[in-house]
């Protein structure tokens, strides 16, 4: 699904990612853990092709294609989804308009027919019910006045609608209490499948109790410092990131 080789990337001339190698197979869920400033969010933005995040060396291959050929919207349409750590508020853009525009843009790209208002609402209802998203939320501007939990549920709603092959979930647990976390994790787990891979980025092990990964990697100073199974997360929870932070300069 995704093959990252020797990836270096900088932001405003500062190198953040310093040689990442990572291979994610179809249907696999990988977790990336790491201390603050290790480059976790940078990796997620590089994967989405955000302006200002420059790949200086190495390669990312997604479903057999060189990702550098695609801009942000093309990556999304090709099935890459980024769940934001801080979902963006868009006052004046109604949630329904946003979701319909996005879904139809992706369908257009995939050569599928666009959905009309009725077809779209029918499809939307299935997901909003499962994620407990109210009509009031849909009427409001995107993420405007949403609680932390509502924002994250809205991210999962977008993922459910767009049906990506590969989802990056950046600190999906941040700002959530345990009940909200459970709802979001259930939403994510419902979307797991043999054709869909995920990269779950988190600082804390807590999230991985609910979204159980196949593999865990530790990112420190812009490199994968260790890889292992889900038990690695428990070990980190116990020992902290001390061994990965101590003795080296901050990234």
């Amino acid at each position: 699904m995704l093959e990252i080789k020797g990836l270096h990337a900088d932001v405003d001339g500062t190198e953040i990612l310093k040689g990442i190698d990572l291979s994610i197979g179809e249907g696999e869920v990988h977790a990336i853990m790491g201390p603050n400033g290790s480059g976790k969010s940078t990796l997620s933005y590089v994967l989405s092709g955000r302006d200002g995040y420059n790949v200086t060396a190495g390669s990312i291959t997604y479903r057999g294609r060189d990702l550098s050929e695609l801009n942000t919207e093309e990556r999304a349409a090709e099935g890459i989804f980024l769940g934001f750590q801080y979902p963006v508020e868009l006052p004046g853009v109604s949630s329904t308009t946003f979701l319909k525009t996005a879904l139809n843009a992706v369908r257009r790209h995939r050569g599928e027919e666009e959905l009309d208002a009725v077809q779209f609402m029918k499809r939307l209802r299935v997901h909003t019910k499962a994620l407990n998203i109210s009509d009031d939320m849909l009427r409001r501007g995107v993420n405007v006045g949403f609680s932390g939990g509502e924002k994250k549920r809205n991210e999962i709603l977008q993922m459910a609608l767009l049906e990506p092959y590969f989802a990056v979930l950046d600190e999906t647990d941040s700002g959530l209490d345990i009940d909200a976390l459970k709802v979001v994790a259930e939403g994510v787990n419902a979307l797991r499948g043999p054709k869909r891979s995920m990269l779950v980025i988190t600082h804390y092990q807590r999230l991985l109790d609910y979204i159980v990964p196949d593999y865990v990697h530790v990112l420190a100073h812009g490199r994968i410092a260790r890889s292992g199974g889900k038990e690695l997360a428990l070990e980190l929870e116990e020992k902290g990131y001390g061994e990965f932070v101590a003795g080296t300069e901050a990234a």
Partner: protein
Amino acid sequence: MGMEAYQAQFADHLPGGGPAWLSDLRQAAATRFSSQGLPDRKVEEWRYTNLKPVQAQLFALDAVSAGAAPPALLESSYRLVFSNGVLQSGANDLPTGVRLAGMAETLSESPGSLAAHMGQINAGQDLPLPALNQALSRDGYILSIDPGVMVERPMEVLFLSDAGTCYPRNLVLAGAGSEATVVEHYLGRGDGEYFVNAVTEIHAALGAKLRRYKIQQDAFGASHVATLAGQLGDDAHFENFDLNLGGQLVRSEIHMALAGQGAEAALNGVYLLRGKQHCDNAIQMDHVVGATNSHQDYRGILDDKAHAVFQGKITVRPDAQGIEGHQLNKTLLLSDDAEIDSKPELEILADDVKCSHGATAGELDETGLFYLRSRGIPEAEARQLLMTAFIAETVAHIGHDDVRAVMERLVGEWMAQ
């Protein structure tokens, strides 16, 4: 230009005929304009707008037809069409109690009918451009609604222009308890360097509800100056929306007098400019008496080297207690060379007053753009969504559903260009 030179020009161009009161009005206006001339940038209200380009166009009054009118904007409207300032076609099947006609035909049918109202609003009288309009205007629309009459269908007045100079003189008399909607549509043909100097006077009597919308799509070579002078009586409600899309040099001036208790005015607008377009919205909101409310919400999007000006003044007269006056101006700058000058002004001489003003200018939100694109929405479409959102609240103020739909369509067309 000196006073004698102006007077010589007026001598050649002052319209003759008509009732004596009108000749006197024209003569007095010509004298007023001659003594002042065109305002220059030393005048505070004209600091940001240079009228020099229109100096040579003031007396180019050889009106010819600007061709056939395009279809109406609104499906079911009573419609009047002016071509280069001259009435071309009138409105049919008007309901009882409503008159919508050209000024010239109204005066020829009933010479005394407009004497009590035309040119009577103080704010408009002393200013040079309305004076010039009063002196030279030959036509315009007269809308008069009898007390208690509710006009269901909107009225639409098209001013189609392609050359020369025109001075539309419009007058709206909304009788007590009446209700009506009127749309002024200024539309240019080609890219002529013509000049429009329009005046609309509005008298809204006790409890009248009037919506007046203006859509300005003059040619990109044209200069467009418009003055709206309104006088609102007790409990009169007035809603105005100014959509500025066209013209090279545009000034839209509003003088609103909240003269009766319970009067309420909402003056909103959107300006969308590119190239070297210049658009100056200058508003004077005058709370003459207490218990009056006003709202202003103007938003714009500027690209290339466009320049917009917003000058909004709220005056609260002494003893005009129990006032609310709010003003907001927001501009989105799409280019480093675009410029907005925003100048709010409050003059409050009473103490029981709730007034606010705010102005912002900024760029398109890059984070929002990335968020939209990360969901597969192509950049051009994402930008359009954010631009639409930026002005959405202002457009939502438009109380007439069909007019709002027209405005939304025109705004969408601008953004898609």
